[in-house]
């Protein structure tokens, strides 16, 4: 037997196996490290300080092998768990004392993250990165001097010319929102520099235009709570903090316990970071107005709700919004985490939660998430906290109702939708009598209107008898009519002489007997045309349209499915009748007359007709503004229809644009493949050639997109022009008659105009030059022009 050494028996397999085991062991360690780092600061039997100390020791040992991984995890934690900022800065601080080089590398890594986030327009990530760097000053990782330099550089953006105000605003916001963390340290070490910084911010805040603010307010008045623009609010909060000598007590600061160790460490200097120059493609976050509905008098005596200008209020709200952001995909988790808020014992938690959720729901121009997310999460909160939350929510509803007169129209709609939805989950139980003040009010006053619109929405979620049963007798006048069709061609002694009755009866019989669309059209051909003698479009026969639309849809009135099936089956008849915009408006008019008491049916059928291209968007818009619809003009459903019409157009344009982009991309990709192919000697497969889009196809798509965009522009022009006409008319008439123009009708209408701008601002943006040149000219009444200017200033 030859004496073989142990490793002679190694074949490649064993070595590979051992290497794989080492790799997978490394992976295990990495995963464990990641888990330890992620979970530090969470509920533990030991104190946070001892956990941090322990973790720092563990990491120090692994820094040589796992440096890159640890850097990445820590940076990720800083960005994705901003509420644990001070925990991770302490950890970095401790690591810095043990390993100066690692500290330096981390700072570099974080700075790189900041730069990349700014360039990529990841605004939240940028702000959290900046804040993290600021807090590292508290841990003696970064020198106060170099932080001041960094903050100054960030503020330079506010002095730039020819850039959007939203850009400047964001940079100021980013700097200001670091100060709660590092203000005290800067005050102690670099008081003068801090003063300069604040002065620069003050100058900017005073100089900047604030035209956009009225458009973003939920309430038009500042009673009882001022509705402040977000920067103004934060500035006031920082000023108050400054007055208190920057003594900030809300943020947990584990690094304080390690101060003696940390201050022995050598600090690093930050490399220079400048705001990346503005690029037209950059989109900055929209400004907002801070939503306030509660103050300490609304809440129980203890714990006290922090004042509007206290920095605590800012920190708590930011934290709660962050919880919503993290958990919005799972409403139960979201509710649980909100109720488990770290500082829940220090604040009237339910009030804070309700306030921030409504702040998001009412956010102008749009809530961050679906409205139903907020509705269903509030329900979960009620389930988890049944003895307190429902009362707070009821109190909030009461407050909103009492202040509804000055609420902006967009928020009014959302309040209506939310309340009806909420009631539908709680057997529609509500103490309506508490609101009987609104019974005697002008029906156009927001309060009675709210009741009426809520009941209409409740009707959609239930049925008519239910609505009648759920309100007290005093509220009977608010109950909507029964949602049944009003068919005018019933054959009886009253309608004997009504033109069209006989054909209608025949048509009804034919349809019931499953006639073809051609047969139906043939019956309609027998109808005389009341417009025959006029010079107008002889093809347009309003009687034909009326008889057909009313009869068919009356027969199909049982349900949406029935109506959809009928419209589909007789699609060609519809298309033949709807040859002109005027004809399409006739169709809408007949539809309205039949279904005026079933608003939901109207919305759904018009949506279907748009989809099947029976009516055009412009026809719907003109119909909404027509004289015949003036009695419906301030009703919510009509605007539901307008907005769904605009959205359909926008979706269409977006889709064409997207398809064009994709096809162009495929074309250039294939072209470069082809050119490679040629140099290779043409070894391409035939499959690739089939997929190849041609220049011709791209051109055709471009044309289609142009046409769609022209249609979209035209739609907006029609809508805005009609608004201008109708509002100007009103203003002139009031002026002539010497009465106050500020009627309820006026407030609703100007509110609806603003709603179109805000809801569709991204699309309208594209045409603002045309709008300014053609419609919103200087000679327009300033009240109307103002709305336009507010819209422009939103992204200016």
């Amino acid at each position, binding site marked *: 037997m030859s004496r073989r050494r142990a490793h002679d028996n190694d074949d490649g397999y064993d070595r590979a196996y051992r290497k794989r085991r080492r790799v997978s062991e490394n992976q295990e360690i990495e995963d464990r490290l990641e888990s330890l780092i992620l979970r530090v600061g969470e509920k533990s039997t030991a104190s946070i300080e001892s956990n941090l100390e322990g973790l720092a020791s563990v990491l120090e040992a692994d820094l040589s092998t796992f440096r890159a991984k640890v850097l990445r995890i820590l940076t990720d934690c800083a960005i994705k768990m901003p509420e644990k900022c001070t925990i991770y800065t302490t950890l970095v601080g401790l690591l810095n004392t043990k390993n100066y080089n690692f500290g330096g590398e981390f700072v570099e890594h974080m700075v790189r993250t900041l730069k990349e986030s700014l360039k990529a327009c990841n605004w939240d990530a940028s702000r959290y990165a900046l804040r993290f760097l600021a807090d590292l000053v508290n841990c003696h990782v970064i020198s106060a001097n170099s932080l001041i330099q960094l903050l100054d550089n960030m503020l330079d953006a506010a002095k730039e010319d020819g850039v959007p105000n939203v850009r400047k605003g964001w940079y100021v916001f980013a700097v200001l929102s670091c100060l709660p963390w590092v203000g005290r340290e800067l005050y102690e070490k670099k008081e003068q520099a801090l003063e300069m910084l604040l002065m620069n911010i003050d100058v900017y805040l005073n100089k900047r235009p604030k035209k956009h603010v009225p458009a973003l307010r939920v309430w038009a008045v500042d009673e009882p709570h001022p509705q402040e623009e977000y920067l103004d609010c934060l500035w006031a909060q920082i000023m108050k903090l400054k007055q208190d000598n920057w003594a900030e007590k809300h943020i947990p600061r584990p690094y304080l316990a390690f101060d003696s160790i940390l201050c022995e460490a050598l600090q690093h200097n930050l490399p220079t970071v400048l705001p990346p120059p503005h690029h037209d493609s950059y989109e900055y976050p929209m400004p907002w107005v801070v939503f306030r509905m509660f103050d300490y008098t609304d809440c129980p005596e203890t714990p006290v709700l922090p004042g509007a200008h206290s920095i605590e209020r800012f920190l708590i709200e930011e934290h709660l919004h962050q919880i919503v952001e993290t958990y919005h995909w799972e409403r139960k988790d979201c509710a649980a985490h909100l109720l488990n808020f770290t500082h829940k014992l220090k604040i009237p938690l339910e009030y804070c939660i309700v306030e921030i959720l409504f702040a998001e729901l009412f956010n102008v121009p749009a809530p961050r998430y679906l409205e139903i997310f907020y509705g269903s999460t509030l329900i979960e909160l009620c389930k988890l906290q049944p003895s307190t939350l429902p009362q707070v929510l009821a109190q909030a509803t009461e407050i909103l109702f009492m202040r509804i007169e000055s609420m902006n129209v967009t928020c009014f709609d959302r309040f209506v939708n939310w309340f009806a939805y909420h009631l539908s*989950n709680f057997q529609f139980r509500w103490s309506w009598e508490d609101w009987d003040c609104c019974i005697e009010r002008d029906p156009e006053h927001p309060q009675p209107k709210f009741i009426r619109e809520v009941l209409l929405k409740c009707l959609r979620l239930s049925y008519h008898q239910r609505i009648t049963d759920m309100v007290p007798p005093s509220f009977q006048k608010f109950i909507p009519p029964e949602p049944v069709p009003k068919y005018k061609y019933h054959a009886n002694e009253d309608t004997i002489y009504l033109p069209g009755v006989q054909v209608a009866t025949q048509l009804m019989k034919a349809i019931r007997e499953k006639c073809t669309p051609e047969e139906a059209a043939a019956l309609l051909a027998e109808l005389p045309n009341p417009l025959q003698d006029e010079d107008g479009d002889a093809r347009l026969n309003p009687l034909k349209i009326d008889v057909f639309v009313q009869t068919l849809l009356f027969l199909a009135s049982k349900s949406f499915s029935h109506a959809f099936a009928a419209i589909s089956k007789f699609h060609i008849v519809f298309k033949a009748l709807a040859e002109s915009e005027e004809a399409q408006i006739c169709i809408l008019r007949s539809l309205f007359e039949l279904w005026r008491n079933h608003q939901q049916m109207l919305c759904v059928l018009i949506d279907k007709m748009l989809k099947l291209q029976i009516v055009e968007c412009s026809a719907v818009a003109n119909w909404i503004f027509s004289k015949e619809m003036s009695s419906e003009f301030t009703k919510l459903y009509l605007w539901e229809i307008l907005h769904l019409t605009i959205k359909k157009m926008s979706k269409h344009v977006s889709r064409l644009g997207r398809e064009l982009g994709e096809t162009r991309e495929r074309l250039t990709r294939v072209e470069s493949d082809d050119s490679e192919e040629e140099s290779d000697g043409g070894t391409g497969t035939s499959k690739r050639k089939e997929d190849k889009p041609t220049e011709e196809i791209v051109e055709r798509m471009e044309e289609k997109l142009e046409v769609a965009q022209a249609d979209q522009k035209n739609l907006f022009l029609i809508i805005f022009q009609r608004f201008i006409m109708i509002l100007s008319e009103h203003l002139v008439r009031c002026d002539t008659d010497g009465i106050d123009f500020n009627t309820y009708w006026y407030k609703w209408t100007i509110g609806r105009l603003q709603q179109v701008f805000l809801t569709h601002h991204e699309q309208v943006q594209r045409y603002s030059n045309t709008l300014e040149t053609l419609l919103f000219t200087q000679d327009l009444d300033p009240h109307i022009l103002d709305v336009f200017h507010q819209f422009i200033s939103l992204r200016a």
Partner: protein
Amino acid sequence: MTTVTSPSVELSSYRDQHFKGSRAEQERLLRESTTLYVGNLSFHTTEEQIYELFSKCGDIKRIIMGLDKYKKTPCGFCFMEYYTRADAENCMRYVNGTRLDDRIIRTDWDAGFVEGRQYGRGKTGGQVRDEYRTDFDGGRGGYGKLVAQKVGAPEMGFIVQ
């Protein structure tokens, strides 16, 4: 990093026994589907009510009401088809487990509507669950069919107010 799992959107353990295809195929379809099964509806819940609630998650492509096989009347379920998966997922997140017509409704992924699937598969024409249940449910015909027969009570017996 703060890996937020999304259990609301996961597949349930239900698999359609009448599905034509393999389990794997069914699961693939379920994971890509834009169609949802909606259950525990009252027999009186209308298409309109369903529309109103479910359109809060996105544009509805179509609703197919579940019908009693013999009576052709609603028997307490429906299929909900959205245009996009994202809208259907939002439905699973925010509508599943909330109330419609005073009842807690349930939504679940469906592999896709096929003609014939709109009918109840219970022996008496409604849903299977209504054959065997023993409780009294005023919105779903009263007692379960088997119980009703045994007791000799008319299905929709004395509606206790």
